[in-house]
């Protein structure tokens, strides 16, 4: 989240789309209700289903699953055509004035540079036109130039007229305009809109672009960096933000520094490729400090054996050849037998990946598998799945019982980037151990094996810094010291081993070690700031500067410099998130993006992490663009009942990751006419809560599908009857819950029915006993298609096709 949970209550309009916070983040959603109570804010909810967020929303609009970009594109078009964007903000805080290259274009659903054979883009044309003299992109502050980013947007989104939006989304024009008017009001400087979204937007084959549409809308309305504004992803697990930062996906080492590529044989080459150059004189371009973070990370991993002479042990790091190697390719490679071992901790592989049958088949090709969890999960018992003969499964499986959150001390990072500490209450059940113990023993054992027997390239293991007093049982605060970073030698007044105060102090000469630069500052010499519980809120905007610690540098709202105009005066005096105090010559309020004493006149851009120093309305190639285009475009889900009204020849995202194995079949509307969307309920959390008596009890039907009344009448399905949801991949059995909350929609001239299927089936805990032989066929992800967003590798769970029959 750019802002934080309590900040939502500072908002004038809470726009909830692509997410159901009332059900999936209830205690966070209170702040939207408080916004209504405190500021008379309106809550708008756009969702295919009338869910429990809609029950308390002021305005509810039903759209067809998968038509989100059309709706948002329509809003951008409305804001641009009616000049409702915040002109002053757009001029100084976004890349609107930047001029785009002449040869960039978009026609019939494709951007320039598409190569059908490789199904990928050559992105050279997606860039600015550079001024040879300064080396910076050309700009037109008057925003008149036809190819300045603002006009490029105007042209691109001109096709998203209210009529077209109604046609694609299945809502009425009036409904759309009602929302558009409310949203447009928030273009005013003193009216802030916050957008709350979650997996409803991410789980599409064009999820990343979908979210960018919302970011661009907020930038145009001047709502980024302001109190009660921002783009707020309501993330999944309690520590998913922490694990995204620290555990890092394949291409990332902890805190978003990159794994080296094979062609970057020396550290110096790697650092050159990943240290961006400024694209505007006022840009702070903070990633320029990449070398400090990288070398500090190497020092943290391999300590003394990482010396300037051996490139700080750069060669110890693995160099993957695939650009981005994630779940989809894991399954595909396992399915092809390329993977020998699988180690998962607190992750239910089978239930969480689409087309679960393929995953179950893939797991059978493994040699061994180690599962660490506190419950017996479907992944560990894949050999008991439907139609699998255990005697044929050669995989050796090891299940290690781990304690859960209450048995471990440590910190968790919530969706608003607050790092909060928790204490251990009781010991784990039975012989279960917590992960500190397990990895302590595992590492010491494998190190011992390498010391005794040697093996392939043992150096990174043997020289790994393992600075724990009890190496077999590391403690939370020892590890937090590593993550926070410490001085490796006495340097300018700091003792060896003293913890670093903030990431600005990190150095690239090997004198500092830091496991995660973003988290540097959580554990200064004074003590563990994650444990702070001071409830003072001087600004009254819910920032609570002294409660726990917020990466980066305890900044509670990202890009808060953008909440003030060129002279440092807040757009809305009533919500002064950040103000330049001329007497004190300092910024006052939340921790500023820029240096606290940098006067506004210097004009340092608010978006300090971007080379342009400004919000990117156009994802130029010069800095980390996207695989499927610099601008969002409405593409139909891979399994859709209607053709793409805007460009029939290119119906789907041309660059989406689609797999073609024998099990990866795609449904077509003729045999599978109904759209189906999968989602969570407030009563359950993924599959773990099937082991919790008082939650399984809350839904008598345990596993149900929400069927519109009209469809049920047509099919003669009674309430409570068990029905089969059929897709080419598999069939799921569930109870039929006939409801009025999903209604048929008229989309592109066709009547489209939508069916809702909560994902909480499975065989864990009480469900196996209750559902008996239907349990194995109750897992929602048996039927989801193996289609993934190309940038973030999120499966398209939210919109695909199925047919329903009586069981």
């Amino acid at each position, binding site marked *: 989240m750019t802002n934080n949970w309590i900040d939502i209550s500072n908002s004038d309009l809470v726009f909830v789309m692509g997410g159901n916070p009332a059900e999936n983040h209830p205690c966070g959603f209170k702040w939207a209700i408080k916004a209504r109570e405190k500021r008379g804010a309106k809550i708008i909810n756009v969702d295919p289903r009338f869910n429990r967020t809609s029950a308390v929303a002021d305005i509810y609009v039903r759209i067809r699953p998968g038509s989100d970009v059309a709706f948002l594109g329509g809003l951008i078009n409305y804001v641009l055509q009616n000049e409702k964007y915040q002109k002053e903000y757009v001029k100084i805080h976004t890349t609107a004035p930047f001029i785009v290259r002449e040869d960039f274009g978009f026609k019939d659903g494709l951007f320039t540079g598409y190569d059908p054979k490789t199904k990928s883009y050559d992105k050279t044309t997606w860039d600015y036109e550079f001024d040879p003299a300064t080396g910076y992109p050309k700009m037109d502050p008057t925003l008149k130039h036809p190819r300045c980013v603002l006009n490029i947007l105007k042209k691109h989104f001109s096709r998203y007229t209210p009529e077209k939006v109604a046609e694609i989304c299945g809502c009425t024009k009036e409904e759309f305009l009602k929302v558009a008017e409310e949203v447009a009001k928030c273009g005013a400087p003193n009216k802030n809109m916050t957008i709350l979204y979650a997996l409803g937007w991410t789980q599409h084959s064009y999820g990343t672009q979908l979210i960018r549409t919302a970011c661009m809308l907020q930038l145009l309305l001047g709502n980024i960096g302001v109190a009660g504004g921002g783009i707020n992803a309501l993330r999944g697990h*309690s520590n998913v933000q922490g694990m995204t930062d620290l555990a890092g996906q*394949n291409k990332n080492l902890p805190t978003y520094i990159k794994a080296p590529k094979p062609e970057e044989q020396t550290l110096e080459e790697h650092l050159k490729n990943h240290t961006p150059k400024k694209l505007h004189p006022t840009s702070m371009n903070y990633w320029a400090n990449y070398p400090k973070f990288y070398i500090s990370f190497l020092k943290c991993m391999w300590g003394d054996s990482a010396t300037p002479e051996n490139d700080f042990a750069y060669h110890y*790091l693995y160099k993957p050849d695939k650009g981005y190697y994630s779940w989809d390719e894991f399954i595909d490679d396992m399915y092809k037998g390329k993977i020998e071992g699988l180690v998962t901790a607190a992750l239910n592989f089978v239930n969480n990946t689409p087309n679960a049958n393929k995953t179950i088949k893939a797991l059978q090709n493994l040699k061994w598998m*180690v599962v660490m969890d506190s*419950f017996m999960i479907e992944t560990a018992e894949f050999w008991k799945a439907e139609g699998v003969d255990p005697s044929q499964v050669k*995989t050796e*499986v*090891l299940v290690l019982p781990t304690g859960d959150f209450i048995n471990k001390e440590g910190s968790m990072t919530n969706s608003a980037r607050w790092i909060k500490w928790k204490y251990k209450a009781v010991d784990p059940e039975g012989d279960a151990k917590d992960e500190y113990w397990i*990895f302590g023993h595992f590492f010491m054992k494998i190190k011992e094996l390498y010391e005794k027997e040697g093996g392939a390239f043992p150096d990174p293991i043997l020289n790994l810094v393992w600075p724990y007093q009890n190496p077999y049982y590391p403690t939370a605060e020892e590890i937090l010291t590593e993550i926070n970073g410490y001085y490796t030698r006495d340097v300018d007044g700091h003792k060896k081993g003293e913890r670093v105060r903030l990431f600005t102090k990190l150095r690239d000469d090997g004198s500092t070690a830091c496991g995660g630069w973003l988290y540097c500052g959580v554990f200064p010499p004074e003590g563990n700031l994650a444990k702070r519980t001071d409830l003072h809120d001087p600004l009254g905007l819910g920032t609570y500067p002294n409660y726990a610690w917020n990466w980066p540098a305890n900044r509670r709202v990202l890009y808060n410099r953008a909440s003030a105009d060129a002279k440092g005066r807040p757009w809305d005096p009533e919500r002064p998130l950040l103000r330049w105090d001329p007497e004190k010559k300092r910024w006052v309020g939340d921790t500023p993006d820029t240096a606290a004493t940098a006067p506004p006149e210097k004009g340092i851009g608010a978006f300090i992490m971007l080379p342009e120093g400004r919000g990117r309305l156009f994802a130029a190639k010069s800095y980390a663009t996207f695989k499927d285009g610099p601008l969002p475009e409405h593409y139909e889900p891979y399994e859709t009942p209607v053709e793409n009204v805007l460009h029939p020849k290119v119906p789907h995202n041309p660059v989406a990751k689609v797999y073609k194995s024998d099990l990866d079949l795609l449904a077509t509307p003729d045999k599978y006419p109904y759209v189906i969307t999968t989602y969570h309920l407030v009563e359950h959390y993924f599959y773990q809560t099937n082991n919790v008596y008082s939650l399984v009890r809350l839904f008598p039907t345990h596993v149900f599908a929400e069927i519109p009344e009209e469809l049920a009448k047509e099919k003669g399905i009674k309430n409570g009857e068990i029905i089969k949801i059929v897709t080419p991949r598999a069939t799921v059995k569930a109870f039929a819950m006939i409801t009025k909350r999903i209604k048929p929609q008229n989309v592109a001239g066709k009547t489209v029915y939508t069916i809702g299927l909560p994902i909480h089936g499975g065989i864990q805990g009480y469900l196996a006993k209750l559902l008996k032989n239907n349990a194995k066929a109750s897992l929602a992800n048996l039927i989801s298609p193996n289609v993934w967003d190309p940038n973030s590798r999120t499966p398209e769970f939210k919109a695909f096709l199925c047919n329903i029959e009586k069981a």
Partner: protein
Amino acid sequence: MEVSRRGFLKLSAGSLGASVIGGLGFDLTQAHARVRELKITKAKVTKSICPYCSVSCGLLAYSLSDGAMNVKDRIIHIEGNPDDPINRGTLCPKGASLKDLINSPYKLKKPMYKPAGAKEWKEITWDEAIEKFARWVKDTRDRTFIHKDRAGRVVNRCDSIIWAVGSPLGNEEGWLMVKVGIALGLSARETQATI
């Protein structure tokens, strides 16, 4: 309520008279209701964070005893932490039922192992489990380690072990697992951020 001597004397003549007629002199005084003792009065309270969604609500976990040594501790009640500025004492249905998650009968109690082709789990000790875990990783890594790729470039990686870190892990244990994964040079590393 035993009727104390003073209480008995307070029985004014009027009510005494009525009771004689009514109860033939029997005095079955009203023992009044006693309110149930607050079940968490003496319990040890620990501050923790709900493991479910990313609001990360602060909560108070009350355990069975006051922390004395000779007690096998157990969670008896969990409610929201009123001093956490985000949830301020509130919890959703999942948070409110955390006691049942922690004390669930389905909790795994022992390391278990399934040999190739077996039909049932076998219980094994922790030492054997750690031994197997380390042995498997070492064998696969040694066998499939790629020092140089086909183009002769030093890559030092192992592609054939998937090292998947789930999001329920806290920052510290998650980072510890990743640190070991990087040290082993595993390229198939992923965190549960996108599924």
